């Protein structure tokens, strides 16, 4: 379970101060798929960074499975991210000069997974995104959709309990985007992984169990799973 309690994030100082997040609170049950919806510049990415421990809001709490991650030191936050979180970014951020295999292997190396267990995990992740045949290709030679699938493989390879996806389909055509969405939701359902998708695409958000609407750094509305299903 993720509990976000009254987090505030301000950019800049004194006169130029800008509240990108203003007293934001919500709760996400484990295994839920969540759509964070809002216009460009509303603070979606900032929120995701705060919840995933990449960024530190100046006030509030982010409690994940009972642990306030804002209280952890740098090393512990790094370890927390390496072990429990998978990231998918809007612009893929795959390492173009590394092979598909080594791209996927990176989170395993960071989490210090023993070498013997890596191959099997990498193969499983590539299998899940249907990229097994590209294992030894350089990432730069992949198509956009393949790159995003590679990013997903990298996000799931260490079996995280939370996956953050920032505009995962923003750079893809609608058919390919659809496939990526299917992949993510399928993984969410099969593994019971909490899936948090940042998007401004309402249709994508509507596929989620829960929708959090962000506007000007504030929560405009939270549609709980129950409400949505009705």
């Amino acid at each position: 379970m993720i509990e976000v309690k009254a987090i505030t994030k301000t950019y800049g100082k004194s006169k130029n101060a800008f509240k990108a997040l203003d007293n934001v609170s919500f709760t996400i049950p484990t295994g839920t798929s969540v759509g964070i919806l809002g216009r460009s510049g509303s603070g979606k990415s900032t929120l995701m960074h705060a919840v995933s421990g990449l960024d530190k809001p100046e006030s509030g709490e982010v409690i994940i499975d009972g642990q306030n991650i804002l209280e952890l030191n740098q090393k512990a936050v790094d370890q927390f991210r390496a072990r429990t979180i998978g990231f998918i970014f809007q612009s893929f951020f795959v390492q173009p000069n590394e092979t598909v295999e080594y791209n996927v292997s990176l989170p395993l190396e960071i989490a210090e997974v023993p070498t013997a267990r890596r191959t099997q995990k990498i193969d499983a992740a590539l299998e899940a995104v249907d990229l097994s045949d590209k294992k030894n290709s350089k990432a730069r030679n992949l198509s956009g959709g393949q790159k995003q699938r590679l990013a997903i493989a990298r996000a799931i390879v260490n079996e995280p309990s939370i996956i953050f996806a920032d505009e995962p389909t923003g750079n893809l055509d609608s058919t390919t985007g659809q496939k990526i969405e299917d992949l993510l939701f399928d993984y969410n359902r099969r593994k019971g992984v909490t899936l948090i998708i940042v998007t401004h695409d309402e249709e994508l958000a509507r596929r989620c169990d829960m929708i959090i609407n962000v506007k000007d750094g504030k929560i405009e509305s939270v549609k709980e799973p129950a409400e949505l299903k009705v």
Partner: protein
Amino acid sequence: MKRIDIAARAGRSLRQAKARTLLTSLAIAVGAFTLTLSLAAGEGSRQYADKLIASNVDEQSLFIAKDAALFGEGGSQFGGSGLSEYDPDAATRGNVTFKQLTAADIEAIRAVKGIKEIQPLYQVAIKYIKFEGKDTRYTSEVSTYGAGIVSETLVGSLPGRGEQIADGDIVIPEAYLETLGVKDASSMLGKSVAVTVGRTSSSVTSEQLAQAFASGGVEAAAALAQPEEKQFIYKVRAVTKQSATALASSSSVLIAPSQMKAISEFVTQGTAGFQKYMAATAIVNDGTDPATVKAVLEQKGYPTQTAKDLQSLIFTIVNILQGIVIGFAALALIASVFGIINTQYISVLERTQQIGLMKALGMSGRDIAKLFRYEAAWIGFLGGLIGSLLAFVIGTAVNPWVTEQLSLGEGNSLLIFQLIPIVILIVSLMVIAMVAGYFPSRKAAKLDPIEALRTE
């Protein structure tokens, strides 16, 4: 992240920037090349010096002087004001005044326990030398035959080690044959050689001069003041072979010590230099450590050098020369350090996104820094390997030629490559490269992942 994984990633990322990696490491390679060659040349010179000393100097021998300045250790009146106290036992060479050993000193040294024999260093300048069957008069150096080392002979034979040649014997070097126009070396054996020396009659008093003038006129007086001459006749016992590692025999004729003494005393008779010696050579009893005898002698006021000291003296010179070359190589390395810093900074800037991603995925700043330091280390390794390999290949190729040009002789070589110093060199280059990579790596470690991921 485990070291091995970081090192592997560092290696792969270098391979992807081949040209840049190669160019950066070439700068190091220049330094490594120079260092490897200078290490090889140093080793070669030391081994050569070692051989040189071993084949010329009996390890049981001591070199004894009165004046430590002779060994370059100071203690004498170098130049100075030009005005220094007169010492009747001192000799002046150029600007330098040396205290000399007297006959009493020689006796005192002979009495020291452990000394088997002592031989003063006779320095005689002869007028000329004549060979049987030739009318030409030649100038030549005459030296004492050293019983410590037996030289190889071309013709004739020499006594065993520790034994002297007879008083009537003379040994001539192979090099003389050419000047003499002698083709068959054995024809020289048994031929007589006349060594002519002269002295100015400084002992002539004004009374003697007046007397001579009174009885024999101007001619008699002039004859008295004329330098006196004396001839010493020897028979050729052997012709020594030319050897690259033999120091003495190549340029002077050799006679027995007793003969050297006779000539020297004739030449210096009546002068201040009579029975005064710059130095003496002593042989220590077998089984006695020359160093202990040296200690005793130095306590008595005779600066002494053992064969080992002589060796270390030569080594010191080699080391200084080597140090100079190493200094230049170090400059090349300093230049390459800036190359590494520069390349790595650019690399950090180029890979901001990659760094951001790795940090977002939970890689610690320390591991990111390690990644960049290891890349630098790889560059250092590559540079060291290229440089030392190149030095080895080129050095091995030109070695015979250089060795010949320096006429070091058969079996010697100027460049001697050894594995361990090269390995140490490469490892140190890796360390230097890592130190150079420190600043860029710290920049990488400090990158804010969110900022880094925002850059498109």
